[in-house]
């Protein structure tokens, strides 16, 4: 346990060092808590289905900033912790939380129908919205976000686990990916980044 905590602390320091280094040429902003995607990345929008069963294209430009997590509802560890973190982030943002839309995109299309996704995300915060869709479409989206998915089959057809990347992706109102957050980034750090980015956006307008 001590080794694990030490390793996490080391990784945290590393992340801060990386983020700080990445901003060496951006004096107008302080140190970010994630990895800046430069130039901001455009990803083709895919036709998904939201948690209410309605068609929804993602990612698209919209009024709010967006934070996307990929996972699945049977995920035993990282997905619940990630959604818990996003719920804490929304709480941390307080009155400004409506400036951010959190998306949970299920990569487990055989098991995760819209109702299942809705039931899962609503346990963390009702403002988090779930997305699912056709397997090929979701895989195309995962490829565009550079997300690794690997299936480990259990004893029955539906008994399997998925190994997957667990980054959070911050998307700006133009629909461009701006920052990637590893699993070690915390809610306070992401909130600080958002406040900083919102200040910069306001200054530009």
């Amino acid at each position, binding site marked *: 346990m001590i080794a694990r905590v030490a390793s996490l602390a080391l990784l945290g320091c*590393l992340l801060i060092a990386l983020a700080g280094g990445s901003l060496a040429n951006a004096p107008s902003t302080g140190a970010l808590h994630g990895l800046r995607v430069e130039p901001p990345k455009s990803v083709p929008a895919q036709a998904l289905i939201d948690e209410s069963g309605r068609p929804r294209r993602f990612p698209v430009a919209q009024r709010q900033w967006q934070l996307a997590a990929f996972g699945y509802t049977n995920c035993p560890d990282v997905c619940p912790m990630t959604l818990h973190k996003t719920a804490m982030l929304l709480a941390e943002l307080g009155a400004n939380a409506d400036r951010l839309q959190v998306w949970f995109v299920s990569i487990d299309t055989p098991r995760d129908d819209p109702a299942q996704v809705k039931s899962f995300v609503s346990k963390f915060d009702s403002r988090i919205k779930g997305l699912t869709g056709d397997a090929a479409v979701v895989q195309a989206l995962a490829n565009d976000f550079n997300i690794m998915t690997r299936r480990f089959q259990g004893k029955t057809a539906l008994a399997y686990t998925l190994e997957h990347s667990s980054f959070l992706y911050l998307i700006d109102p133009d629909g461009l990916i701006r920052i990637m957050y590893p699993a070690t980034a915390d809610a306070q750090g992401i909130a600080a980044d958002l406040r900083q980015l919102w200040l910069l956006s306001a200054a530009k307008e």
Partner: protein
Amino acid sequence: MRWIGAWICLSVLAAPAAADMSARQVIDPWDYNYCGGEPVYPVIGINFSTFCGPRNQVALGRRGTLMWIFPAVDGERAHAQGRRKLSEVELKRLSLLAEVAQLADPPYGDAGGVNYRLGIDFQGRPYKRMHAIVSERYTPANELFRAMLELVPDTPLMPACERTATYYDPTTLPADRQALTEQPRLGFAYDRKSR
């Protein structure tokens, strides 16, 4: 009464687990970017050179070994070459930079004296390949390039050149680069896309 006893036992058993859960952010330190499974290092390969200089190569292998070849002259390997196993922290740093470099597009419009070709291969994901120019500007690819070179104890030969070009292929011989830049459409049109 028996149910109440069972409930109390379960509560007592569950309490330390819940406290432990909140104390750590991830289940396994290696879960910096994966849910479960074995840690996977990306294979990263970089070829780089100045316009008139030899083709230098530095690469990270799947098992976490950094390898480099810095020739004195193309076709010879007299200047420096070597390999070393990287530490866990060094590998994590390179892996994180490779993740973001894989997602980001290569920069356009930079000017500089060193061109590089970068390839990233994470297991189970599309292979990423890009061509870029070293500059002071922050880009994930530039950060990855710098981070790789920082881990190499030797210094590559990158002579300043009398004549240069914005884009050239660092994997070719200097004479070929010269010939190709005289026909720029043939030389550089193919590698401006990332995937």
